[in-house]
C-alpha cells in the first residue's frame, strides 16, 4: 500500500481514538453541553442534538465520498494510460445538489426557529425578577426588594453565589455600568449580553438544588477571566430563610453609604 494511504489510515485511527476518548468522561472532552437544569437550556440542548443528527450524516457521507476518491480514483489505482471521461457537468446532478442542501438548511432553520419562539420571547409570567448588572469585574444581582448580591470576580477563590429558588420562573434583566459583558452559565442556558444603556433579558427555572458555574463571555478588560459566576439553586424554604438573613444584614448595614 502506498505510503500516503498508510498515513491516511493512521490519521483515521487517531480520529477514532479521539472519538473514543471523547465518549468516556475525560475532563474537557465531552461533545455536548453539560446536562441542562432549566427548560430553556433543555430546549437548546435538544436543538443541538437535532442538528447533530443531520450534521453527522452529512459529515460521514461527504467525508466518505472524499475518501472514496482518494482510495479508488488515485492514479496508481487506475489502469495504465487511463483517460478519464471528459464530463463538463450534469444539469440534473447540479440541480440535485442545490435542492438537497436547501431542504436540509430550511429544515434546520425551521426547527431552530420553533425553539427560538418558544424560549427566547420576552416573558411576563415570572414569579420573581432579578436585575443583573455587569461591571468591571463582577456582577450585581438586585432582587428588587433591597437585597443585592455582589459577586466580585476572582480566580483564586469561589465567588459569592447568586441564589435562586428551585422550580421558580425567574426573569433576569441585564444591564451594564461600563463596557459590554455577557452572562453565561452553560448548564442553565445560553449567553445574554449586558450592554450599557440597552435592555436585555433572559430567564431561568432550575429544577433541582445545586451549584452551577459560568463565566463572563465578552472580553471586558484585563479582569475578564476572573468574572466567574456561580448560581446556587435552593429549595423554596431554604431560599426564604436565606433571603430573610440577607434582608437582616442589609438592614443592619444600611446607614453606611453603598
Amino acid at each position, binding site marked *: 500500500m502506498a505510503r*500516503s494511504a498508510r498515513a491516511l489510515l493512521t*490519521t483515521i485511527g487517531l*480520529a477514532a481514538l479521539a472519538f473514543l476518548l*471523547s465518549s468516556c468522561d475525560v475532563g*474537557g*472532552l465531552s461533545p455536548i453541553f*453539560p446536562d441542562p437544569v432549566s427548560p430553556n437550556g433543555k*430546549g*437548546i440542548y435538544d*436543538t*443541538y442534538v437535532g*442538528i447533530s443528527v443531520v450534521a453527522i450524516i452529512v459529515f460521514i457521507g*461527504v*467525508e466518505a465520498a*472524499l475518501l472514496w*476518491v482518494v482510495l479508488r*480514483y*488515485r*492514479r496508481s489505482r*487506475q489502469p495504465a494510460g487511463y483517460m*478519464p*471521461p*471528459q*464530463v*463538463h*457537468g*450534469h444539469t440534473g446532478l*447540479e440541480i440535485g445538489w442545490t435542492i438537497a*442542501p436547501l431542504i436540509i*438548511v430550511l429544515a434546520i*432553520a425551521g426547527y*431552530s426557529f420553533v425553539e*427560538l*419562539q418558544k*424560549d427566547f420571547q420576552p416573558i411576563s409570567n415570572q414569579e420573581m425578577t432579578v436585575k443583573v448588572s455587569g461591571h*468591571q469585574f463582577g456582577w450585581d444581582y438586585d432582587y428588587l426588594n433591597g437585597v443585592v448580591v455582589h459577586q466580585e470576580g476572582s*480566580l*483564586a477563590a469561589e465567588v459569592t453565589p447568586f441564589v435562586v429558588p428551585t422550580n421558580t420562573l425567574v426573569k433576569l434583566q*441585564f444591564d451594564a455600568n461600563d463596557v459590554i459583558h*455577557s452572562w*453565561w*452559565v*452553560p448548564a442553565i*442556558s*445560553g*449567553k*445574554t*449580553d449586558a*450592554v*450599557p444603556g*440597552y*435592555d436585555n433579558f433572559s430567564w431561568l427555572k432550575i429544577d433541582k438544588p445545586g451549584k452551577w*458555574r459560568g*463565566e463572563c*463571555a465578552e*472580553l471586558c*478588560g*484585563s479582569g*475578564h477571566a476572573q468574572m*466567574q459566576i456561580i448560581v446556587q439553586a435552593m429549595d423554596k424554604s431554604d431560599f426564604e430563610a436565606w433571603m430573610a438573613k440577607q434582608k437582616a444584614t442589609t438592614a443592619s448595614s444600611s446607614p453606611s453609604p453603598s
Partner: protein
Amino acid sequence: MATTVLPRPKQYDDTFFKPISIWLTTTDHKLIGIMYMVTSIISFVIGGIFALIIRLQLSQPNLKLVDAETYNQLISAHGVTMIFFFVTIFVTGIANYMVPLMIGARDMAFPRVNLLGFWLIPVAIILYYCGFFTGGSLNAGWTGYTPLTEKAFNHQTFGVDFWALSIIVWAISGIMASTNFLTTIVALRAPGMRFSRLPLFVWAQISTSILLLIVGAPLAAAMILLEFDRQLGTQFFTTQGRPVLYQHLFWFFGHPEVYVMILPAFGLISEIVPVFARKPIFGYMSMVAALFGIVFLSMTVWAHHMFTVGMNTYVEGFFMLMTMLIAVPTGIKFFNWIATAWWGSVEFTVPMKFVFGFLATFLIGGITGIYLASVPVDTQLHQSYFVVAHLHYVLFGGSVFAILAGIYYWFPKITGRLLNRTLGEWNFWTVFVGFNGTFLIMHTLGLEGMPRRIWTYANPAWATTNVIITISSFLIAFSILVLLINVVHSWGHGEIAGNDPWRGNTLEWATTSPPPPYNFERVPPVRSFMPVRDLRESGELIEAEPVLTPT
C-alpha cells in the same frame, strides 16, 4: 518530461535579491505580487509566534507566563495579523501575480496604483505595531468592540488609535486593489478570453473584489467614527451613544471579510482539482453562479455575530435563515469539486494533498457554521472555544490549506523551480495532524463552558484538553518551519520546473517560468476555458522557450 535547458537572456533577472530600488519602483505585477506574498508570510510567522505564546499561557490552569493585559494584546495582534496582514494580503498577492497571466494580459490595468496599494500595506502593518512600542497595542480582540475601545475605558495607550489608523490605511489599499483587479479583468483580457472562458480563479477574484469594494468603506467609516469619539469627544459608540451600532458596522464588513479570505481559496481549489484529476471542472456555470450567490448572501448575514445582544426574534430568524442559505452555494461548489475528481485519474502531488486536506477540514468548519447560525444553539456556542475552533477550521483548514496548495502549485511558475517533494509531504502530514490535534478538541472546551479571550482559567477539568492542544500547536509550528526551509532552499536549488510541470490548463503555463517582464512573447490563442490544454492537444504548445539555468 525532458526540458531543454537554455541560458536565460540577461534581461530576465530571476534572482530574489534584486537591488532595493527595483523593489521600490517596479510596476511589474509579478514583482508586486511577490512583495505581497513575502510580506504576508512574514506576518504569518509573527502571528504564529503570538499564537504559540497564547498556547503556552493556556497550557495549564492558573499559569502566569504573561499577564492579562499582555495576553489581551497578544490575541488582538494574533487575530489582526492573521486576518488583515496574512490571509487577505497573501490572496491579494497571488492574484496580483496570476490574474494578468491567466487572462493573457501584460500587466494590471493601473500598475502604479498597484504599487501604491502594495506599499500601503507595510505602512498599515507598521502603524499597527507602533502600539507595541508606545506602551501597549490594541487589547480588545481583533473586533475592537466599543465601548471597551472608547477613551473612557482605554485611555492609557494609543494602541486603539494605531489600530484604527492601520485599518483605515488597509481598507484604502484594499479598495485600490479591488478596483484594479476589476478593471484589469474587464479591460485587458486576451483575444478570445470571453467571460465564459475565464478561469475560475479569475471569477473568484472578480467576486472577491466586488465584495471588498462594497464593504471596505463601511469598515473605514466605523474606524473614523471611533476616532472621532476618541479624539474629538463625539458620542457615536460610547455608553451615551450606541455601542451596538459599532457591531453592526463592523460585522457588515467583518462577515464578508471571511469571504474575501475564502473565495480566492475556492478559486485556487477550482484550478488545482481539474489539473490533477485530468478532468475539466464539473459544472463551470454553476461554479460561477455559486460565487455570486455567496457574494450576495454574505452581505445579508452580519448580525449572526450578535445573537446575544438582544434583538427581536424575527430579525434573528431572518439572519439565521440567510446564514444557513450560504450552505447552498457552498454545497454546490463542494459537490462539483468532488464530481470533478470522481472517475478521474487523480495524482496526489503535494498541492493536491493540500486540496484534499482543505476539503476534509473545511467541511467541518462549514458544518459547525450551521450550528452557530442556529440562534438558540449559538447563544451557547457564541464567544466560546467552539467559535475559536470553528473559525480556525474555516480560516486555517480552509484558507490557509488552500494557500499552501497554491504555494506548492504555483511556486514552480514564480521561481522556475519545484518545491522539494519530500519536505512537502512532511509539511502536509504534520500540519494536517497538528491542525486537527489543535483545533478539533477545542470544540469540546467551548461546549463545556470555556469562554474565548480569557487569559487563564481555574477549572482543572480543562487542563488535559488544553495541554494536548498546546502540544499539537507546536507540531503546526514545526510544519511551517519545514515549509519555510523548503521555500528558501528550493528558491535557489530546487529542481528546474520547466514551463508546465503539472500539465496545466490555464494561460500562465504557456509562458516561461518565471514569466518574462511582459508575460508572453506572443499571447496564445484562447478557444475554451482550458486554453493551454487545447494547445497541448493540438500540438501547438511551444516548449522551447528559454528556462532557468541551474546554478
